[in-house]
């Protein structure tokens, strides 16, 4: 009986640890959304989220976690299509800059400064125009 407890106890501890470690995806999204609205986080042409200035650890962790998950999705698609992860990420970046940045939110192209989206469309990198939309 004691043995069983000795085996189960660490397992239970690990389960609790794993639950704590995995921040809920919905919470990450909410943190990033509000940071975007506050002009602290924005989309980049390279297909990832970027941070402007210094932000809280919570925001940084949420951005890192989302970027890691994005990279996993890019990697999977790149493997299927026989292209580099960077290719997939960049083409996805064209899409996010084209249609998923709201007026007032920030974005960045290349190593340039962060810009704030105005009423008009974002002036995209040349390569984005290749397929029209």
């Amino acid at each position, binding site marked *: 009986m004691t*043995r069983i407890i*000795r*085996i189960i106890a*660490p*397992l239970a501890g*690990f389960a609790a*640890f*794993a639950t704590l*470690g*995995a*921040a809920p*995806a*919905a919470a*990450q*999204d*909410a943190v*990033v*959304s509000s940071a*975007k609205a506050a002009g602290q986080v924005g989309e*980049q*042409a*390279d297909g*990832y989220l*970027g941070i402007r200035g210094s932000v809280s650890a919570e925001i940084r*962790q949420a951005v*890192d*976690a*989302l*970027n*890691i*998950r*994005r*990279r996993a*999705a*890019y990697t999977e*698609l790149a493997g299927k*299509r026989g*292209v580099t992860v*960077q*290719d*997939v990420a*960049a*083409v*996805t*970046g*064209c*899409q*996010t800059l084209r249609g*998923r940045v*709201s007026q007032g939110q920030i974005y*960045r192209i*290349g*190593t340039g400064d962060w810009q704030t989206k105005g009423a008009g469309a974002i002036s995209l*990198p040349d*390569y*984005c125009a*290749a*397929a029209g*939309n």
Partner: protein
Amino acid sequence: MRQWTSFGWWLGWRASALPLAIAASGCIQVRAPEKPIEINLNVKIQQEVVVRLQQDAKDLIDNNPELFPQ
């Protein structure tokens, strides 16, 4: 006999602890990566590749909206 029993227990304990330790270290890495992602902001990409991946990229966003919160 008693020695062997306790050795067996020790062995079993080690065998079960090892995968847990590996799994636990994996968790820590995901949560607080030392080097999150090396992002090359200077994108160089061939237009032909853009054309080929355009629809895939749209689908990727549509199918994973939680990765692209607005």
